[in-house]
């Protein structure tokens, strides 16, 4: 591949990703009650690509599988089916040793609850220095403490904060520490799982701005996971809307918000309380999200969909030109 081609090829390519969880009762209980095995398809046949230096957002409500996808990408979970290709390298089983380490250095994750993602018994300097130690062989030989000081300054903390423990910080500052740790080994790809949903609005603004600044400064690629449509609108270049483990719609951020196509996306946009639309009339939203253990057959959204027909009850719609909907496909909407 030439440089120009590398430039244009996606950094992350997810194809047909699926993950099934066994949620059966323990063996003995199952035998006693005569119940069978139970599975949840948390993620079902999800495909998308993430362009270099851009932010791809996955948005969905509870049970949509968005956090599972995050964990699959960073390798905390093994996919049941499907492939994840990072910068042309297939991330399957069998990636070991130095090669795996080189790759791991390049991706990082930022979690929802900064208090849980920082070891409470470690000092902030040690927390930020951990990736430096783990990837010492792949990093320029420098005083790790100097780098820690640099990282602390980068995320807007002071060097004196390094000796403190996580519980001595506010929520926003803790998330800054988590970001500093994520950046320590100079990754180019960061998965952000609801990074601001535990934070107050004014602090959220600080963190979102910081993340944008860092993206520009270091050319980072983000996969940004959130349930908050406003935040996603602000951060993302491209958005995938998830419903019960499947992608309902994928589109450029602006287009998705201006001309939502999938009935679920439309409903979601109608439901968001937005401060700029005070007192506007809203369409009534119907129904609730079904249980992922027993999803409706066919299109999972059909029980709540105003455009539902017989085909929707039977047949799972495929993602065609960014929308998985029979009604859109048939030109009914």
């Amino acid at each position, binding site marked *: 591949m030439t440089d120009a081609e590398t430039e244009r090829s996606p950094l992350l390519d997810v194809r047909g990703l699926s993950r099934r969880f066994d949620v059966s009762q323990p063996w003995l209980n199952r035998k006693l009650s005569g119940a069978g095995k139970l599975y949840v398809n948390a993620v079902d046949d999800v495909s998308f690509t993430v362009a270099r230096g851009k932010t791809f957002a996955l948005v969905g409500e509870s049970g949509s599988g968005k956090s599972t996808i995050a964990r699959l990408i960073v390798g905390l979970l093994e996919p049941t089916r499907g492939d994840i290709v990072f910068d042309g390298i297939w991330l399957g089983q069998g990636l070991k040793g130095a090669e795996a380490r080189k790759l791991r250095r390049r991706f990082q994750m930022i979690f929802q609850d900064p208090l849980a993602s920082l070891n409470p018994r470690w000092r902030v300097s040690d927390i930020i220095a951990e990736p430096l130690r783990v990837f010492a062989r792949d990093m320029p030989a420098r005083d790790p403490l100097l780098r820690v000081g640099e990282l602390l300054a980068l995320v807007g903390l002071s060097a004196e904060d390094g000796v403190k423990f996580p519980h001595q910080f506010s929520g926003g500052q803790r998330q800054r520490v988590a970001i500093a740790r994520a950046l320590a080994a100079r990754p180019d790809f960061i998965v952000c799982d609801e990074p601001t949903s535990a934070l*107050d609005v004014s602090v959220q*603004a600080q963190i979102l701005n910081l993340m944008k600044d860092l993206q520009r400064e270091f050319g980072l690629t983000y996969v940004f996971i959130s349930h908050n449509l406003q935040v996603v609108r602000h951060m993302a270049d491209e958005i995938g809307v998830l419903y019960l483990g499947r992608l309902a719609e994928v589109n450029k951020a602006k287009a998705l918000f201006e001309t939502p196509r999938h009935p679920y996306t439309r409903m979601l946009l109608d439901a968001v309380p937005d401060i700029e639309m005070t007192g506007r009339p809203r369409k009534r939203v119907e129904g609730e999200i079904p249980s992922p253990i027993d999803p409706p057959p066919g299109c999972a959204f059909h029980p709540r969909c105003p455009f539902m027909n017989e085909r929707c009850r039977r047949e799972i719609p495929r993602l065609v030109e960014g929308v998985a909907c029979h009604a859109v496909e048939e030109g009914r909407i």
Partner: protein
Amino acid sequence: MTEPLLSVRGLTVEFPTRRGVLTAVNNVSFDIMPGEVLGVVGESGAGKSMTGSAIIGLIERPGRIAAGEIRLQGERIDGISPSAMRTVRGRRIGMIFQDPLTSLNPLYRISDQIVETIRTHLPISLAEARRRAIGLLDDVGIPDAERRIDDYPHQFSGGMRQRVVIALALCAEPDLVIADEPTTALDVSVQAQIIDVMKRICADRGAAIMLITHDMGVIAETANRVAVLYAGRVVEIGPVRDVIKDARHPYSVGLMGAIPKLGGDAERLTQIPGSMPRLSAIPQGCAFNPRCERVFDRCRVERPEPIAVAPQREVACWLYDEPRSDGRAHA
């Protein structure tokens, strides 16, 4: 002008601790008119939930109301006996909390809980109470209410449970409902439904709502007026639309700018530097002064009290004190 339904004057809640007395709510005053929805918004530590708890007399020990008075229809309800308070709660003030499971007893059927609450407060027969409970559940949008009334709380989904809680809060026909983060635990699409139900059912019954939340979007959709709290004090109060479109207090201005908008294309959000002070380290003068970019000398010394800047609007900020002791050169 009509008499306010609820009138809070100079409410101060204190918590004595081993490192000194913490003031969680500091000289807070506001009114709620009959049938009105007052939004109370603030970030964590602003004292918004504590204000709600003070009104219904549910402050956890060792906290206590140190000053101020709370009047419901002109009658004081702070410092009354626990049994008198219990009658006020439920009968005259209904409550909706963030987690429906704190309001519902998992061991009893929904029917038992609602019917018992109705019969505790209203002199009606068992059959009548049950009929009424079914009607209420139907009203809050629980399908097949007649059959589902005999289910247990765990048999309902999160959104349905919150509907049951709304029914429970309204079953004794209170004049005021205090809703503390009623939709925070719910998904966006369910949240919209719950807001609708709450608004509609309270409007039907003429009940006022005190809506406590951190989500300005929910307030924008629901409330008539909004009070913005910061570090245990009201910094701004006024009609929702005015406060959102034309915030006056520097904190409210920052808060509105910090919220990402669906329509907006802003590259960066407005950000307020720093974070809400801890209760043990609230700055002297205006509590917001270290984070405020328009701060001047007076802000660091003297605490601003709410100043009327327009009809129905008050702002606790020295910038709006006339005649202005001009310190804007410092800004």
